């Protein structure tokens, strides 16, 4: 029954809570306590607005985002956007395999064994077409996030402080804070999600009639993701931050689950991390190859042979093998990779948002379904805020400010 009501919105959000997401929220709580909790409310609003736009574009036009960008803005723009997407998603793929490596290490399995096995598993799941049947297992295992909710409660944070921190904004121009800020937004509102959600809406053939349902689905997905994110930050703030532990490895990040799982916290965290990584690694690189090929007119799809769709398979292999190669470098800083890939998502997000906004406001394309003024305001503010934050980030890297 649960699976029957799961729409594109909820599925997209489940893939979104990937290894990069868990890590970024964990680091946010572990390094800054509750200082970033207030971002959750504006981020949730922005996420809903952006995702609603993506699904509306899909419902009204019946086309994917990459297709629309190609048809409305031509080859040059498309190539630029696709490059942005490839860079962001290479980062995400890196994050998924780092998550696998870190998860394996929690069980004492060396990454030199675990990552290649993970890559082969992903390949088989996808190319053998068994992914559809495993999707439910992944989704079911996503219930792991409930652990953070329970652990957050069991950690007995000072709820007064937590709630205050959730609604009262605070800000700092320190480079670390800005980096984390961009990372949190980047992992919550990732560029690939907009492509993925819109394609899923199109594939399901959702028409304007059922749109109300999809809107609810997107809203639920958004809320669930951000409630989970909020609890991860709270749990880490109440456990890791208060003890001034510097999070260097996945083992440290797992401490947030100690109030719930005690000495099994590392194992629980490991399973969650591995599941999230495998899930997203099965979806993301493949989806990326699809969008790029469809937009540029190359054949795509796992029902083609490598000879029929060389660009599709080539890009897919490069994404996976490249990510594995980086992760397998000796002493690769796994958590750092996980986190920085999400910052990259945040930095690249405005590129995608601008084109979405231009598309969704085209009367000829959308008819009566163009953006309302509040939606435009929220989306443009998000876009501009991300650009400003990125610039601020660059500046602080050059000129240490107040640090």
């Amino acid at each position: 029954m649960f699976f029957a009501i799961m729409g594109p919105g909820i599925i997209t959000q489940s893939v979104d809570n990937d290894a990069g997401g868990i890590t970024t929220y964990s680091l946010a709580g572990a390094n800054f306590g509750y200082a970033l909790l207030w971002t959750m409310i504006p981020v949730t609003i922005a996420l809903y607005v952006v995702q609603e736009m993506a699904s509306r574009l899909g419902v009204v036009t019946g086309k994917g985002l990459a297709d629309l960008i190609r048809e409305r803005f031509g080859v040059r723009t498309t190539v630029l956007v696709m490059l942005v997407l490839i860079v962001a998603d290479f980062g995400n793929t890196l994050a998924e395999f780092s998550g696998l490596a870190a998860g394996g290490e929690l069980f004492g399995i060396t990454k030199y064994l675990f990552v290649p096995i993970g890559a082969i598993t992903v390949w088989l799941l996808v190319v053998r077409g068994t992914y559809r049947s495993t999707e439910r297992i992944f989704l079911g295992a996503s219930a792991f996030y409930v652990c953070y909710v329970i652990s957050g409660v069991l950690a007995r944070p000072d709820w007064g402080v937590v709630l205050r921190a959730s609604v009262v904004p605070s800000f700092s121009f320190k480079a670390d804070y800005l980096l984390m800020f961009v990372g949190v937004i980047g992992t919550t509102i990732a560029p690939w999600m907009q492509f993925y959600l819109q394609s899923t809406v199109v594939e399901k053939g959702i028409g304007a009639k059922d749109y109300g349902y999809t809107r609810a689905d997107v809203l639920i997905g958004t809320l669930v993701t951000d409630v989970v994110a909020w609890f991860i930050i709270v749990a880490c703030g109440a456990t890791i931050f208060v003890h001034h532990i510097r999070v260097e490895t996945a083992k440290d990040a797992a401490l947030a689950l100690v109030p719930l799982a005690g000495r099994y916290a590392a194992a629980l965290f490991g399973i969650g991390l591995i599941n999230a990584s495998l899930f997203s690694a099965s979806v993301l690189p493949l989806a990326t190859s699809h969008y790029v090929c469809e937009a540029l007119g190359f054949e795509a799809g796992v029902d083609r042979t490598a000879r029929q769709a060389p660009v599709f398979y080539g890009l897919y292999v490069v994404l996976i093998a490249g990510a594995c190669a980086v992760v397998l470098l000796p002493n690769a800083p796994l958590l750092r990779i996980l986190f920085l890939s999400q910052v990259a998502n945040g930095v690249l997000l405005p590129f995608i948002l601008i084109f979405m906004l231009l598309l969704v406001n085209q009367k000829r394309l959308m008819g009566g379904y163009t953006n309302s003024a509040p939606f435009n305001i929220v989306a443009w503010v998000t876009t501009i805020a991300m650009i400003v934050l990125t610039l601020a980030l660059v500046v602080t890297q050059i000129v240490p400010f107040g640090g």
Partner: protein
Amino acid sequence: MLYLSQLISRPVQDATGDAFDRIADLVIYHGTEKFPKITGILLSGDRSRVAIIPWDAVAAVSASGIRLRVERRHLTTRPLQPDEVLLRDNIFDCQVVDTDDLKVVRVNDIELRQVGTELRVVGADVGTRSLLRRLGLEPFVAGVFERLGRPLPQGVIPWNLVAVLGGTMTPLKLSIARAKLKDIHPADLADLLEELDRDERVEMMTALGDETAAEVLEEAQPAVQTTVIQELPTERAADVLEEMAPEEAADVLGELPEHRADELISLMEEGKAEEVSRLLEYPPETAAGKMTTEFIALPETMTIEQVLARLRGTHPDDQTIYYLYVVDAQERLVGVLSIRSLIISPPQTPISQVMRTDLVYVEPDASVDDVAGALVKYDLLAVPVVESGGRLAGIVTVDHLLDRLLETYGSRKLGGGVDLLRRKASRDAAGTSPLAAAAPPQADNGPQGGSPGRDAHTRAAGPEVDTPHRPT
């Protein structure tokens, strides 16, 4: 040779030589011409109003722009006609169907040929070369590849082999789409359907006749079937479902939301609607859920001659003719008559004398795997489904089951890699009818006779089949 990408944004001069605007788009009349003429220009300044300058006003055209034969102030514009298409807006960068290679392709550029002042569309450029041209990298990259001894191919599809779908549907546009798609095998159309966008799918399914549309839908993936039925106007969807085999229609309807399924069934012709509703009652993953109620049941009192006369009168489907089931007065299955016996027996022979009575059948609640096992083990093209009272309820054909089994076991590759050349060759050989070249399955196998085809089944299966005997 001119390309649309070279003309866009080029200056337009009037008779006085004043370059007053730029080319935003070119217009073609989407008619029956193989290589349509450009009928008008849309200037950047007129883009929002879609005001077209008729092509008669053109004095000269080249890669550096267009010169008009009139002065700017004497120019008259007209609105876009219903059957006119804007090349850049509606075709450039969009998907079209390559009706020769049977692929959905994206148009990177449009090739134009100039005869005097007349300009015609001659091809859709879908190759990598045109992609590079749009990026301004063609000379460089093409040069590199040439030096490597592997020059980049052109990748131009002649315009007469291009089918443009999507956009506004006019009667003329639909009839052209129908003409372009008519020689493509329904199974190939189903593959194309899967790759098209929503509007293009709707246009394809609208352009095709009810019967072809139904065949195409039968061949499509279940996910595509449901979305297509959801996307089509309700009346049309009901018409297509009506033409589909009842078990296929039931499969599609079973995947739809209940209210939608009921709505569609209520619009179907009464007999068909009843049959489909009945099939919908059965659990989908059983013999009864997969069976078709279209089969040939002959009263046991008939003679060979009467059977032949009846078959000639009723034109049964190619799917169902291979087995002629014999029933008694209570519709209970008593035997099966092979085509072989039908042909070699004297006309006056009662069929009860030549039919086989040692039957392989399955019960309505048998699992799909068991049914598949029975078909595989006994090399059957179809297996009858018999209720506990002995009544013949329907048959499950190997054809219907095969699609489902391949899906379950994820072997879409089997279809994806199928040799296009062979299909194309058969299309060419067959001339107008792609079906003519399709090899019919051997028709004279009895239910337990030889092999039904080249398919060497190796899958082990242990079906629960009631007392199979070898024929004597």
